[in-house]
């Protein structure tokens, strides 16, 4: 069995620190990490690898520094890593990205047929969750998103059944391979790479593909050119003009402050009084 896992290197928004005095958010020099949702997908794929002796190939589209993301994936146990990098890919939105990744997967298929494609639920920088479905449509793969558990895999019958998170419950779905699965967060715990894994990851020769090696047929469909959506402007949110009315009393005692606040609140918003009255216990 052959599984391809798509990962993305993103800026680490969790490392944003807050200054102790001014409380402003500091984001300079924020390092790049593997999109945490993709690691969940990778771990899920590696578990299937353990159970079914599958081969796991990790694929990413990004600038040359995305190599570190691939090496991290290798250290957890992926067998092969491919970096799609080319100036022509830059500025891609989700449609252009899924086109490039799908083309690369078609190339990968030439060497070894692909049974499953795994991707994280979404990225922490884009949040769109669109690339996974995009790849599935382009490759004609059955698509299962928000998968929280892989129930059964029958390689002879070429069937997979999963649990999928839906509104108010879990759908149990069965479909045929090849399929694309996006994985919900928190469903597994990442394994800890061993030292031999770290060595292998550091030394493994990555495959680096430009647009030709990736088998891109139509360059009008990649990068900025192939992106229907365009950012027309970036701006800071307009601050609300009305600042808060700070409740102050002579005594500064909490009980006085509370009483004053309630008086102001219910005078200006009598309907709130009724609202609270209705539901209070």
């Amino acid at each position, binding site marked *: 069995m052959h599984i391809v896992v798509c990962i993305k290197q993103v800026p680490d928004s969790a490392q944003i620190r807050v200054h102790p005095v001014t409380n402003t958010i500091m984001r300079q020099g924020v390092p790049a990490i593997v999109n945490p949702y993709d690691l969940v997908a990778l771990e899920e794929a590696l578990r299937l690898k353990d159970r079914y002796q599958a081969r796991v190939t990790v694929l990413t589209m990004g600038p040359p520094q995305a190599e570190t993301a691939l090496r991290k994936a290798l250290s957890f146990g992926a067998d092969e890593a491919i970096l799609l990098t080319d100036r022509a890919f830059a*500025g891609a939105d989700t449609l252009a990205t899924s086109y490039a990744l799908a083309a690369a997967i078609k190339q990968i298929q030439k060497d070894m047929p692909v049974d499953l494609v795994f991707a994280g639920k979404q990225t922490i920088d884009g949040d769109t969750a*669109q690339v996974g479905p995009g790849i599935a449509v382009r490759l004609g793969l059955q698509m299962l998103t928000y998968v929280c558990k892989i129930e059964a895999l029958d390689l002879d019958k070429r069937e997979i059944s999963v649990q999928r998170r839906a509104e108010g419950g879990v759908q149990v779905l069965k*479909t045929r391979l090849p399929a694309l699965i996006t994985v919900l967060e928190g469903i597994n715990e990442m394994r800890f790479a061993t030292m031999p894994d770290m060595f292998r990851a550091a030394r493994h020769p990555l495959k680096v593909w430009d647009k030709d090696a990736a088998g891109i047929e139509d360059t009008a469909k990649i990068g900025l050119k192939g992106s*229907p959506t365009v950012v027309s402007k970036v701006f800071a949110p307009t601050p609300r003009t009305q600042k808060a009315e700070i409740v102050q009393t002579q005594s500064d005692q909490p009980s006085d402050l509370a009483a004053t606040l309630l008086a102001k609140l219910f005078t200006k918003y009598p309907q709130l009084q009724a609202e609270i009255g209705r539901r209070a216990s």
Partner: protein
Amino acid sequence: MNDTTTQTPPARKPAGRRKFELDARLAAYKGVWVFIEHERGAAHSVSWELLGEGRKLADKLGVELGAVVPGAPGENTRKFCVEAFQYGADLCYLIEDPVLAEYRNQSYTKALTDLVNKHQPEILLLGATTLGRDLAGSVATTLQTGLTADCTELNIDMENRSLAATRPTFGGSLLCTIVTLNYRPQMATVRPRVMAMPARDETRTGRIVEHPLGLVETDIVTKVLEFIPDERRDTANLPFADIIVAGGRGMKRPENFQLIWDLAKVLGAEVGATRPVVQAGWVGADRQVGQSGKTVRPKLYIAVGISGAVQHRVGMEGSDVVIAINQDPGAPIFDFATYGIVGNAMQIVPALIEAFRQHLATAKLAS
């Protein structure tokens, strides 16, 4: 979303500045559509929120607002059409087929893409729910068009007659406006509760346009084996709560968070929290309010020990009245709250609990 890790936002002429000439073929696309999401007999309210928004867009463009209702044949599906008209739709595109009884990506994608190809709307909106996100990505790719996710604002750029979709970017501290220039339909998803629920006009009607699905069960590869409903637990209902008391890192310790629960109990309110508090494990993830949590629109939001950083703000700034309690007079929350008290939450909140209790007691006596 443009891949911003490879370069800073593209140094191109902003879309609004030049008069963009749309291909004649694409210029023929007219109409604003909203996908009506429903499962197991209930429609998701985000569908109505989007109809409210869609109505505004359609009016600006001078076109019709359509609701798309795929579903199994029967009462419910037709009922949703009626509701759609009452929330502002002019017409309802109805696809009824037993195969659509349960949501599956393949059948729903075909339903939507067939309709779009036949009737060619210029804008298609879906809710950014689990189902919506599953569906939107495959529809957009099949139609080879642009999709902007999790929008907080939708406008029409009248110069180009195009959709300007605004969403957070760079970790949420900034906003960006995205346009889909030379592709149609322009697709966008919006999270539940970001847009206001529109008024319902029970007298309003519209016309139904029926459409066959053109698929049989054997065509569909994915089968639904069963549906396991969630056990009824203490699940929060934040998005629809009218009063919310939320706590942040300023509570300092998990034990102090009990004060939030206590105040909420007195007010009959729901309990919310900021992301750091949820990540620290003080409350469940379903209580997270903010950019990566829930969007809420209560009548009253009491923010205790919350700094008001933008990632949290975007989740609750739709509240009618905001009361902020924070030790730091410079906290950003005081820039947009209605009332503020600068002080130690651990002292203020008990005082508030007492004050509300007394007030309710006297009010009860009076009534």
